[in-house]
């Protein structure tokens, strides 16, 4: 248990440090939301100062940080000047969309990568392995942006898939499972881009991890006892090979969220990515900070989850 407690404390400290640093940097930055107003001759300097005062952009740094941290703790995530309201409602809605997209993509990527990687490991050294690896390697060389644009082109050309958004107009008022099906239909292409982006790396790791346990003495022993290949693979070898893969899932979360940001922007998926980009462009500091904090929390939570899984899967950690 101390292992998990230590990981949890570490994660909390990390989030706290990120909040302090990002807040300090945001205050150091030249210009804010109101500096854009200064170019408007109808708004006087004193009005802008008044607005700043009102928005809490004046006052000592510790006081500002305390106010912001309190707002974080309350779950408001600050006050957006561009949206004229607390950030939280917009943020949660966008975060749900991003989680839905990345979660779906992760699920399908692993469902494809595990059998593919296992199969590659069994066939390693044969032409089948080489061919499969070459086919996947091609995917590594294609930038995510290009992949997303190509899928968008497919959607525009064929009309089989929607070209953006998360729901069709008015779909929410439909009964039964229709709204969910509509979302799934919108989800298909962005998720496919993310899956294709992740797949080569995942398959490569599954393959090398499985190859290791196929060659290990216990793998050879299981084979000598005449246990069938399928049973050996999925009951004996895969669980033993799982450890580095769980760690990989935790580590690759940052890459996944980054790829998701691009895909969301290109394909018009209403997730955190477009929200963040718009906030950066509009100098809406509260939203920028909120998204930064949330993405840090996602990463920390994801890594904690991976630690938890490792703890459940690997008895050696429990003894440490």
């Amino acid at each position: 248990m101390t292992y998990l407690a230590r990981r949890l404390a570490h994660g909390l400290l990390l989030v706290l440090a990120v909040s302090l640093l990002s807040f300090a940097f945001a205050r150091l930055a030249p210009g804010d939301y109101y500096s854009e107003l200064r170019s408007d001759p109808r708004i006087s300097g004193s009005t802008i100062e008044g607005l700043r005062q009102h928005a809490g952009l004046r006052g000592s740094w510790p006081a500002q940080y305390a106010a912001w941290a309190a707002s974080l703790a309350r779950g408001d995530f600050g006050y957006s000047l561009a949206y004229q309201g607390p950030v939280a409602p917009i943020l949660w809605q966008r975060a749900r969309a991003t989680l839905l997209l990345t979660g779906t993509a992760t699920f399908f990527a692993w469902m494809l990568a595990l059998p593919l990687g296992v199969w590659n490991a069994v066939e390693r050294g044969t032409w089948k392995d080489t061919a499969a690896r070459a086919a996947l390697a091609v995917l590594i060389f294609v930038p995510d942006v290009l992949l997303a644009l190509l899928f968008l082109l497919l959607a525009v050309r064929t009309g089989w898939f929607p070209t953006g958004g998360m729901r069709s107009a008015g779909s929410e008022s439909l009964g039964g499972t229709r709204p969910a099906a509509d979302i799934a239909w919108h989800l298909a292409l962005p998720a496919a881009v993310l899956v294709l982006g992740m797949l080569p790396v995942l398959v490569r790791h599954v393959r090398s991890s499985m190859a290791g346990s196929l060659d290990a003495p216990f793998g050879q022993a299981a084979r000598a006892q005449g246990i069938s290949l399928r049973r050996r693979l999925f009951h004996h070898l895969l669980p033993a090979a799982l450890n580095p893969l769980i760690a990989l899932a935790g580590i690759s979360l940052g890459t996944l969220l980054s790829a998701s940001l691009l895909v969301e922007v290109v394909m018009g998926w209403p997730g955190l990515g477009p929200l963040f980009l718009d906030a950066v462009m509009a100098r809406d500091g509260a939203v920028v900070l909120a998204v930064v904090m949330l993405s840090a929390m996602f990463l920390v939570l994801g890594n904690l989850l991976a630690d938890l899984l490792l703890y459940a899967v690997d008895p050696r950690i429990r003894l440490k």
Partner: protein
Amino acid sequence: MTALRPTRILLSLWLLGLLHAAVLLAGFVAPYPYAEQHREYPYAPPSRVHWWDAEGHFHARPFVYGLAPDAASGGYREDPAQLYPIRFLVRAGSREAGPLDFPRRLFGVDAPGVLFLLGSDGYGRDVFSRLLYGGQVSLLTGILAAALSLSLGLAIGTAAGFFGGWLDTVLMRGGELVMALPWLYLLLAVRALLPLNISTVQAFLLLIAIIGGVGWVRPSRLVRGVVLAARESGFVEAARGFGAGDGYLIRRHILPTTLPVVWTQASVLIPQYILAEVALSFLGLGVGQPVPSWGNMLAEARQYHALLNYPWLLAPGLAAVPILLGYLALADALSEGTSG
């Protein structure tokens, strides 16, 4: 496979050398300067290069036909009456020529004719030429940012690994903080701190500073590992026993052992940073028009109508493919020796 390793390294170096030379010599290889507009030919499709003319006569010198607007399709059709042979080492028109441009171009066609190997964009600018010039920005950003990251990583990793103690703790904890954000979110957040409307040169330097400055953590961890091992090795102990100081030890004994890691990391980081530049410029936070980069060129293909009707605007994305292939093949071959 080990016997093939030098061959693979050499092959990928040749591929990369060729691609980089073409991009570096854009002022010679590209038929037009990057900003030269042919307003009468917006969104022209890639020029078709012919060897046989309409009457079936063979021409030893390939040629393109003149373009005429086609009312029926809203695009262009070839005009068989105008025939422009492709000439080599043509004298460049003085229009819009920049400091990096050569007095002669590798190939081109005579003035009223146009040669758009990869089509033209909305201002009638040659996509092929812009792709080569844009490569200068994208590749240079990748290489310089990687150099920055590696220098920082080398300095920080060596300091942390060699001196250990509280310095090690502080530096590695700092690295964890940087890694606590997804990298694209981090890049955007750092970019958000800085003014949005800046000149092209400033934007270019800023990109290098941001991308390179954010990426030191992974190389520094790898360097630290190597340094830790080297510090305890026999030859370092021996040198210390002979009275070698810290500076001498680091310079003569520690740094040379980190070189394999540094080269492998360079081949991994450069393509990653090229993609980072593409992503940032694509999102409108990098180098701006009229200076091309692969990212801001791809951004033009984002509108549905452009994507649907002028798919050749995707060419800059495809240009990244052989570059990535070269670097990743190099990284693969290099790391094979170090990690077994």
